[in-house]
């Protein structure tokens, strides 16, 4: 009896507030936009029966997504931005994780805390902090002009470059932590063995350390790539009007154009796009767990 209660309460909550909303999104993505309240047709009507209702649904919105090149350009550009910034996050994050894992054990918890601390700080504030740095009169340009590297201020804010910087900055902890935990578990004697057998330090890194840290690298890349793909805050604050990202398109479709069916269709396609990396990520984690036990 009590077990049933324990299962039913969270189960019902998630069904009602997670699964049912998705069914609604799917349904509205198959409906037509209309000047009504709420602004789509058909409305469900018990009197007409469920088949009459289903017969009115169609894939028109999805056809529309393939015809208007705004949408597929936005999907492609989100993919490009997410992949590029994941790569740069890896380039920045790996040396930090490596440095942390090589630090004396006494320092490691403190270093860990300093990596996690920004995660507890508001995401919005961390993105906002870059607006003042990257703008034309911003501190970065002031510094570069003062030091004589440039004579004209660089335009960085409101370009894709600023979006890359924003993503690398805000998602860096997600990259560092899994790589660090992979490196920390590594047996140091393996490197010594490689060096004894005649490897140089660099070769030992490429042949021993890097392959052993691969699960951490893969986990970190997914943890950055998946949220970056649907990102909304960073492109809308740091990106320009030509920065196309699907999260921003969905937002504008919904709030500015008030086209709910198209916004829902965009959401459905974004979800389909995410299924592949999410499944791959799950498989990687499972393999990792099996290897551990």
């Amino acid at each position, binding site marked *: 009896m009590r077990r049933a209660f324990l299962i039913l*309460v969270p189960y019902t909550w998630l069904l009602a507030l997670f699964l049912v*909303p998705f069914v609604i999104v799917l349904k509205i993505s198959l409906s037509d936009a209309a000047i009504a309240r709420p602004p789509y047709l058909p409305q469900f009507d018990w009197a007409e029966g469920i088949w009459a209702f289903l017969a009115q649904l169609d894939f028109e919105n999805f056809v529309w997504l393939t015809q208007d090149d705004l949408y597929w350009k936005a999907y492609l550009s989100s993919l490009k931005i997410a992949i590029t910034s994941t790569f740069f996050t890896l380039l920045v994050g790996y040396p930090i994780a490596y440095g942390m894992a090589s630090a*004396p054990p006494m320092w490691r918890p403190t270093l860990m805390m*300093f990596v996690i601390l920004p995660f*507890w700080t*508001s995401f919005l504030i961390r993105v906002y*902090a870059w607006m003042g740095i990257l703008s034309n009169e911003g501190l970065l340009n002031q510094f570069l002009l003062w030091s004589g590297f440039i004579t004209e201020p660089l335009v960085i804010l409101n370009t894709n470059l600023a979006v890359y910087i924003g993503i690398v900055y805000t998602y860096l902890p997600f990259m560092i932590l899994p790589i660090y935990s992979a490196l920390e578990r590594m047996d*140091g004697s393996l490197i010594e063995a490689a060096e004894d057998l005649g490897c140089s330090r660099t070769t030992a890194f490429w042949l021993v350390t890097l392959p052993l840290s691969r699960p951490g690298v893969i986990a970190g890349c997914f943890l950055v790539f998946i949220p970056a793909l649907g990102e909304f805050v960073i492109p809308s604050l740091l990106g320009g009007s030509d920065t196309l990202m699907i999260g921003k398109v969905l*937002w504008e479709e919904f709030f500015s154009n008030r086209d709910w069916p198209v916004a829902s269709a965009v959401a459905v396609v974004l979800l389909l796009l995410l299924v592949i990396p999410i499944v791959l990520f799950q498989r990687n984690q499972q393999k990792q767990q099996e290897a551990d036990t």
Partner: protein
Amino acid sequence: MNRMSWFNTVSLTLGFAFLYIPMVILIVYSFNESKLVTVWGGFSPKWYGELLKNEAFLTAAWVTFKVAVASSTLATVLGTMAAYVLVRGGRFFGRTLFSGMIYAPLVMPEVITGLSLLLLFIGIGLDRGVLTIVLAHTTFSMCFVSVVVSSRLVTFDRSLEEAALDLGCTGSEAFRLVTLPIIAPAVISGWLLAFTLSLDDLVIASFTSGPAATTLPIKIFSAVRLGVSPEINALSTIMIAIVAVGVSIASLVTKYQMTRQMKEEQEAERN
């Protein structure tokens, strides 16, 4: 691995500089006298005064706080239940769907979660306001809580619970007297995580809030869209300070608990 080469020192220094310099700049410029955020006009705390006079921000902060307390508490209860069911529940009908629904919100883009919840609320005719934001935040943060709590439940020795039951505890007594104290640190960190997630959320709150309830991130976002302002810097500084104090207290408490636990274990070994 235990080698500190110049390369490691440099990468750590640069890495932490990259992580922290933007926030330091933000804090420094919140004490700027000048209205122009990029020009230093001398030290002044005047923007904090302006902030305290700004009714709209104060109201929004209060709404955000209420939402965060309510949703994180609800999420902790539901998430702990869900974790218990997942780890101890055994097999039941629809278990795969249940665990799927626990993990999916963790990777779901916020725009999709927000949109779907909004469509639900409109579908059932629920007026958007504090209640709808609480419902939305509870839903995604209970999943984070359940992940944190279940990782603790997995590692703990089940025979302790069984011993309590053998010694005459009822099921709920065993949970209250044995299980709960052991998983308490995970439950507390789950609550803290849910609280911060709720404080921080812009996208889902924007979809699910109505004109009657505006949260602080929504307010900040609409102000920031127009450009950088020293008042927002002051507000950010206050929020960073709260987080820093909270995290330091939390880490001190865990450190104290760990040393106490180690002492107890040592004593137990000696006896």
